[in-house]
């Protein structure tokens, strides 16, 4: 019982990084831009978060500054991919290399320093005393509720219940048609790619201020790439993305539990689980029914820059 309660709590906490980054990537890919720089953005957010709280002990400020850095870097990325229309895959890889490199350079001074302040778990009265699930579901830091409930609700509402969302999806499906009806394709792409990048960097701050909570080189450990894979697996939908992230949180925390309980499997082998699990899950949906597959399909214009003059 205690094992299960701990597992639920760690899964939710661990999945938060992936969920937030994946939500950002959903925004970006829905408008038709593949942002492969998530890994770099998480790294930059993570180091910004920790550097901020070491200077000024406010986790909220750390998160806000991290997202601001993400927004600015995202705007640079959007300028390259949406305005100049350079190759999205190359720009994304470049952003990942720059982000991880710069974060590691700055991070030397902060390596191994525990975050002086973090987002503390808050126990919701009564509910948190529930057996088994109480601790996991109702004794979490405030960001967990925002990431798992508030944000997916807002993004789902935006995408599927507003006029704006219809425009946004049209830009990702058929930018030429959207352009013809007067939707500002470039503006919308620029805005949501930048916002998505801000969320990815926020995921970094969550990593160092709520989950780990400290910086070390390689702390991001491919979470950005897993988040990108999740978005595909989740069919570019916010709620499914969050659920998939939770599943990955579970896989990650199985590794932690295994290490803590001295399972006869070496730690590096347990650490392989999330990556192998992601690959497994990427292959699974293909076995699903044709109808589900069509529902989960990528935006039709994903990855393609839009040139008004070449049609």
């Amino acid at each position, binding site marked *: 019982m205690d094992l299960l309660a701990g597992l639920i709590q760690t899964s939710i906490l661990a999945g938060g990084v992936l969920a937030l980054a994946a939500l950002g990537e959903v925004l970006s890919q829905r408008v038709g831009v593949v942002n492969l720089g998530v890994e770099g953005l998480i790294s930059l957010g993570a180091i910004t978060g920790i550097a901020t709280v070491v200077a000024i002990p406010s986790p909220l400020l750390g998160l806000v500054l991290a997202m601001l850095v993400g927004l600015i870097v995202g705007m640079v990325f959007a300028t390259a991919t949406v305005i100049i229309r350079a190759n999205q895959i190359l720009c994304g890889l470049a952003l990942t*290399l720059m982000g991880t490199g710069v974060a590691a350079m700055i991070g030397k001074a902060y390596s191994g320093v525990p975050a002086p302040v973090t987002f503390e778990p808050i126990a919701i009265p009564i509910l948190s005393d529930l057996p088994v699930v109480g601790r996991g579901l109702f004794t979490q830091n405030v960001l967990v509720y925002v990431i798992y409930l508030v944000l997916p609700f807002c993004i789902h509402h935006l995408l599927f219940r507003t006029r704006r969302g219809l425009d946004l999806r049209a830009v990702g499906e058929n930018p030429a048609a959207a352009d013809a009806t007067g939707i500002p394709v470039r503006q919308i792409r620029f805005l949501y790619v930048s916002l998505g990048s801000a969320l990815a960097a926020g995921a970094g701050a969550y990593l160092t201020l709520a989950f780990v909570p400290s910086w070390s080189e390689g702390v991001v450990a491919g979470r950005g790439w897993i988040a990108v894979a999740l978005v595909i697996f989740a069919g570019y939908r916010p709620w499914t993305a969050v659920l998939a992230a939770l599943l990955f949180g579970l896989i990650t925390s199985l590794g932690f539990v295994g290490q803590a309980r001295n399972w006869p499997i070496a730690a590096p082998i347990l650490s392989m689980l999330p990556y192998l699990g992601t690959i497994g899950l990427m292959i699974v949906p293909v076995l699903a029914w044709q109808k589900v597959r069509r529902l989960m399909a990528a935006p039709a214009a994903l990855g393609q820059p839009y040139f008004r003059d070449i049609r």
Partner: protein
Amino acid sequence: MMVMRVQRMPSESFAGGLAARLVAIILALLVAAIAFAWTGADLGKLGAHVLKSTFGSRFGLMDICLIMTPLILTGLAVTIAQKVGAWNIGAEGQFSAGAFAATSVALYVPGPAVLVLPLMVVAGALGGVIWILIPTLARAYADVSELITTLLLNFVGILLVYYVATGPWLDPSGLSFASTARLPPEIPLFWGDVHWGFPLAVLLTILVAVVLNYTRWGYEVRISGSNPSVAHYAAIPFRRHLIVVMILSGAIAGLAGMFELAGTTHRLQGGISNNFGYVGIMVAVLARGSALGVLLGAALMAVILKSGISLQTQGVSMSTVIALTGLILFFTAIADELSHYRVVRPMRTEN
């Protein structure tokens, strides 16, 4: 009145593309230099140090050749995958798997180096193949993005090497905590410290270029990569080419791991792949699908890596080199797009 207009062309001129890339690389280095100057580094001193440690001595040149060897192979692996329209971002993992497989041969197969080395070569290539097999089949039969699956396997490969190097295969002498004992089979030396892996990598690159450019198979592969629907129309077996080329790509990256192990490090150690796989992507991007380009791209990136290593005493780390690589990649991608634009004069029309 004549109005000058900028227009995007479907393809760019060779000279224009080259010039744009040169500008991009110089700009990236300039940005890095400004960043260094801003942190208070003495640029003149750093520059002199870099020049002395790279082109200034025989040892510098030897080191560049040694670093070039894995980069040529990983760059070639990414390039041939691109030829068939696939992104092999997993050279890092295939490199690790190749080094792992070659080590297992060196550890468990007794015999003279003459016999063990070829076996290690086969094992290294096979390790790379195994590492790319699932992404290849998933892409070929289920259309799963090989970009992400190959990339995720990088982490698994690095963890695998780390695990055996610190666990079951740890140097029994107790002198090292994160590597195997020195493995006796060594690739013979070619020039100073440079082993025969270097000329072999160059030869392999030329061989691949010839096959791709001058055989029917190579032609079919290139068609498959540039336009799958045309390939389908012409009854070219696209899927078979995709599988064969991706497996070949994995084998080449695995070979890079074997060369690095038996030629340079002589021990399997954690982090043996040393970002060679990621820098290999950069090499392939610089090469733009040409074999001669792979050699030039590998040379350029080797000089940058060597400069980074020589500046480590000045507080420059591998992370700095990775960040700089990203910066060059970013500017190159932008330059590639911008070089499509031409200034055109519209034809004069009479009323």
